[in-house]
């Protein structure tokens, strides 16, 4: 028994200071329930990182979903994909017959500048901030490989071209390398356009067992891990090992090889994040991601498009909603519903989300999932 994606929905992504978190969730839920052609579910899993007390219940009750088991998940940037993973396991195990996974986040009401982790965390207390975590990876990566800051910027250029084709994206302007490198410096070597901006949004996915519908998308496998220790004894930059190991779990469960993916949605909260992730996923060799980006292999029209939605950099990164939005994008791609950013003939989609921020760990959580057209 396995799980199928019956319907997906999202709000728009961006700075939506005049919208309540629950209102954004209602948009996503109404669309997903209609897309799935159901009016109720048996349980809900809700991913949110900074969501306030009861945001899941406020959101779900507004579309008639109350009195059911509701589980709220905090797994940093992988909160939404953890909710989808747990919903899929609940369906596959026969625990429930219809489940909704919701992700919701409203960052502009909480932050003015870069997101910081918990003040009792060593690295945050020392002033590293999230951009700093990734900047450290970039510093090391540039030292170890024959790669330049211009090469890193090309990831943002690629994803901005994709985001310009996504009507729901936060940043809808195609950027040049000069614009990316010339934007405000945040944490050297990462400039503003190499960092996902503050975003408010929600996304929802309805899952259930197999139906007689070619529109339903097969959740062929998903895997969840938390990171092991990350310190001076670690061989790779932060987050590499947990993504690699989670991907291997998912590939094995799905019976695919990395090269079988036709389209990917991966965690590009920062340009270096996409680079390290693509290598950890086994899509390219270590040190090879920037060359693959430069060659156009990972762009729409290339051999294996990565982040056709615009990714976290351009679609936006409302933390808890991100993983669910990745599932929505892949569902649209695998059904052929992705409009101007459609990857022609896509049959297998892979998503990866990595959440971190706890000092000394190689990430708080990572989810890798394999989706297949129905």
């Amino acid at each position, binding site marked *: 028994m396995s799980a199928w994606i019956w319907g997906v929905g999202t709000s728009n992504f961006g700075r939506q200071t005049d919208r309540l978190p629950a209102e954004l969730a209602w948009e996503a839920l109404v669309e997903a329930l209609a897309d799935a052609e159901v009016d109720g579910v048996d349980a809900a899993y809700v991913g949110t990182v900074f969501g306030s007390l009861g945001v899941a219940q406020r959101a779900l009750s507004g579309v008639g979903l109350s009195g059911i088991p509701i589980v709220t998940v905090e797994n940093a940037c992988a909160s939404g994909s953890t909710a989808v993973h747990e919903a899929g396991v609940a369906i596959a195990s026969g625990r429930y017959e219809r489940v909704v996974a919701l992700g919701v986040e409203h960052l502009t009401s909480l932050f003015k*500048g870069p997101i910081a982790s918990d003040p009792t965390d060593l690295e945050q207390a*020392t002033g590293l901030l999230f951009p700093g975590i990734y900047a450290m990876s970039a510093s090391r990566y540039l030292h170890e490989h024959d790669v330049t800051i211009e090469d890193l910027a090309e990831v943002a250029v690629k994803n901005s071209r994709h985001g310009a084709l996504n009507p729901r994206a936060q940043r809808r302007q195609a950027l040049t390398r000069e614009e990316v490198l010339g934007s405000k410096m945040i944490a050297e070597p990462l400039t503003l356009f190499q960092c996902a901006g503050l975003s408010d949004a929600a996304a929802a996915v309805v899952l259930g067992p197999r139906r007689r519908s070619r529109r339903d998308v097969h959740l062929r496998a998903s895997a969840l891990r938390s990171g092991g220790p990350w310190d*001076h004894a670690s061989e790779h930059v932060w987050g590499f090992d947990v993504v690699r190991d989670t991907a291997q779990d998912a590939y094995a469960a799905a019976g695919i090889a990395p090269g079988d993916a036709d389209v990917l949605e991966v965690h590009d909260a920062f340009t270096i994040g996409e680079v390290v992730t693509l290598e950890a996923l086994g899509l390219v060799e270590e040190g090879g991601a920037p060359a693959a980006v430069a060659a156009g292999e990972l762009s729409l029209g290339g051999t294996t498009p990565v982040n056709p939605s615009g990714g976290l950099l351009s679609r936006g990164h409302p933390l808890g909603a991100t993983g669910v939005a990745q599932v929505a994008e892949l569902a649209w791609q695998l059904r052929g519903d992705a409009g101007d950013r459609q990857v022609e003939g896509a049959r297998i989609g892979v998503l990866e989300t990595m959440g971190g921020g706890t000092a*000394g760990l190689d990430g708080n959580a990572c989810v890798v999932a394999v989706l297949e057209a129905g």
Partner: protein
Amino acid sequence: MAVAPPTLKRTDPRPVVVDGADGPLLVGIRCTLCGHPSATSPPRCARCGGETAEARFGPDGTVWATTTIHVASGVREAPYTLAYVDLDDGPRLLAHVQDGPGLGLRVAERARLTGETAGGDPHVKVIR
């Protein structure tokens, strides 16, 4: 030689730095089973789960990575420079770089623990 116990900063997760005979030292732990060192002081080793004992590290090490943060964060004014420094035979330490931006700190350079900033952050300076 008797050593004074480190001052516990119970609400502050940052590592403790004390004065040693040859300069400031980081107070952390070393696993009694596998020998793995840590800049924090948990009761069990993150690598093998073994019991830990207090240990002191530094002051010298090698820069693993570095960044300069250009956005203000709470109590700190930007820009400021941070480095992960792998202390010799010790743990990786996240530290502020003395004299801050413009220093041109590079990966793989040698650095030395020089104490704590007025705000309580461990700080290092490059050795050239």
